């Protein structure tokens, strides 16, 4: 025992002495040398952080793409009748391709280039100047190219959501034309206003009406949801609606689609921290809690009203909660997320089950009832529940953090949220109406009644989702 103690002391002394000698040598070295080492160390630390952030952001980008395909494609594909299954899935998949091309050519620049308060400039067309160097205004630790490709995934899923409103009756050619115009006329300006440099509603880069929108409550869900309603009203009902029963042909497909939507949403919301730090964790947790609470809310409301909780109700509730928490994810605490989710689940259920039936519009897959209504609700509740402890986004002139949302005493923020939501509604209504009119006059929006009875799969693509016989 005693020997061991002596040995330990001897070792400790030796180590200490050695360290002393090394330190003395460093001190003896020139000051310039030490400085150089520190600079190098700092640089290495920055590189390490950059690598970590970049890894998370590339993962997030992939997760968000997964929300469109297969997530949304399966979710919507299951909800339509079986003669429209692949036509509906193709709408999502086609946008993965078309929006990507637009994004590279000019949409990224129109969204995130520095331009006016309403739309970005043209300095980044053809992705000029979008390379390995970070764009410090947006995300200082990741390559601008990572930021660009991450934002692209949002630009893909947003128009894909609208397809739920005109399901089973729009020409494929008209759909593509509509989406190309919509990306440029509605999405790019809205993304610029909320997230772009100098945008009218930007909360962190000096907007006139700073709107809190962490991951796209207004940019993604309000714009797509409201445009969906306009589409449903403009195109009119499907042949036979609402007299004929048009139940989902496969709740199984929808279920398999809803699950990657939930998982992908972690990339959508937690990725919107644009770094791999604690804010990403906070957004991740809020996202998950809201989805869970909304599932309980929707299925519970249905259980009380119909006597049975449906599977479709459960997965629709999860999506509604994810929609509502999207603008709030990086600003609220977990318990606030639970409340937002619960309200969203019940509210969206009421929109879909009551309001839609009352007004009789054929929002076939409830793009407005879930994304428009849930997005609007979430954007407003963000102004209520945002707290500076989670995300110190607002500073006064001295650089001190000030209150974020209503529960911290900043009632003014709720007004800003209303402005943001109002701008999104207005832009979506006016833009969508104008585009629909143009496409209607030039290409024609709807397939013929015969084609509608035959289904999108055969009439638009010459294929069937479920082939009936092997030989013919």
């Amino acid at each position: 025992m005693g020997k061991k103690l002596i040995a330990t002391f001897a070792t400790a002394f030796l180590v200490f002495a050695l360290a002393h000698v090394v330190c003395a040598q460093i001190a003896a070295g020139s000051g310039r040398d030490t400085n150089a080492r520190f600079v190098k160390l700092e640089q290495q630390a920055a590189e390490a952080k950059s690598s970590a952030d970049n890894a998370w952001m590339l993962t997030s980008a992939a997760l968000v793409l997964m929300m469109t395909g297969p997530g949304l494609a399966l979710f919507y594909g299951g909800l339509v009748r079986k003669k429209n299954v692949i036509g509906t899935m193709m709408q999502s998949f086609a946008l993965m391709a078309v929006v990507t091309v637009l994004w590279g050519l000019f949409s990224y620049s129109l969204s995130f280039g520095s331009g006016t308060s309403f739309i970005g400039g043209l300095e980044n067309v053809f992705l000029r100047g979008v390379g390995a160097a970070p764009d410090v205004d947006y995300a200082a630790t990741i390559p601008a190219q990572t930021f660009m490709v991450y934002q692209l995934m949002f630009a893909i899923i947003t128009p894909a959501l609208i397809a739920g409103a005109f399901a089973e009756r729009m020409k494929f050619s008209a759909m593509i034309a509509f989406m190309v115009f919509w990306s440029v006329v509605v999405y790019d300006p809205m993304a610029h206003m909320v997230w772009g440099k100098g945008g009218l509603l930007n909360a962190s880069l000096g907007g006139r009406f700073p709107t809190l929108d962490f991951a796209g409550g207004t940019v993604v869900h309000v714009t797509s949801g409201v445009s969906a309603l306009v589409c449903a009203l403009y195109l009119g009902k499907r042949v036979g609606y609402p007299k004929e029963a048009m139940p989902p042909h496969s709740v199984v497909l929808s279920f398999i689609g809803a699950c990657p939507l939930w998982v992908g949403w972690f990339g959508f919301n937690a990725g919107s921290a644009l770094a791999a730090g604690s804010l990403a964790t906070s957004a991740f947790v809020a996202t998950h809690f809201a989805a869970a609470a909304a599932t309980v809310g929707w299925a519970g409301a249905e259980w009380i009203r119909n006597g049975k909780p449906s599977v479709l109700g459960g997965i629709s509730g999860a999506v509604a909660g994810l929609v509502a928490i999207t603008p709030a994810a990086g600003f609220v605490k977990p318990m606030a997320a639970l409340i937002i989710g619960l309200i969203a689940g019940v509210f969206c259920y009421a929109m879909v089950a009551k309001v839609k039936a009352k007004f009789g519009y054929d929002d076939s897959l409830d793009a407005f009832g879930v994304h428009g209504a849930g997005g609007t609700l979430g954007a407003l509740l963000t102004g209520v529940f945002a707290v500076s402890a989670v995300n110190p986004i607002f500073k006064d002139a001295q650089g001190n953090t000030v209150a974020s949302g209503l529960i911290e005493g900043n009632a003014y923020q709720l007004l800003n949220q209303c402005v943001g939501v109002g701008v999104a509604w207005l832009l979506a209504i006016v833009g969508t109406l104008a585009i629909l009119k143009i496409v209607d006059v030039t290409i024609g929006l709807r397939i013929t009644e015969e084609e509608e009875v035959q289904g999108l799969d055969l009439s638009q693509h010459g294929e069937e989702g479920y082939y009936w016989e092997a030989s013919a």
Partner: protein
Amino acid sequence: MTKLEAVIQNSKLDAVKTALHEIGVEGMTVIEVRGHGRQKGHTEVYRGREYSVDLIPKTKIEMVLPDAMVEKAVQAVLGAARTGKIGDGKIFLSRMDEAIRIRNDERGEGAL
């Protein structure tokens, strides 16, 4: 008793059903079928390979009627299912010897 079988366009099922209910037809069996008459099929292409499909999805309605109702039912189906184009389908009538209600052994027109 007469058995009425009608092969119709899928899109006309609702109209035919309603028309038959209006004249008092109480029961029917509906089957999703595939088939063809004079109407030509269509072509589907999978990865460049063409398949011609001549069996087209149709709906078949079957019911057994008391003789007094047959002509009314035929008129109802004709009126509701006709678009005037090839592919509207056909109606077949045949004699039915007996009908038996499984629940209580009742026989004849009373069992319908």
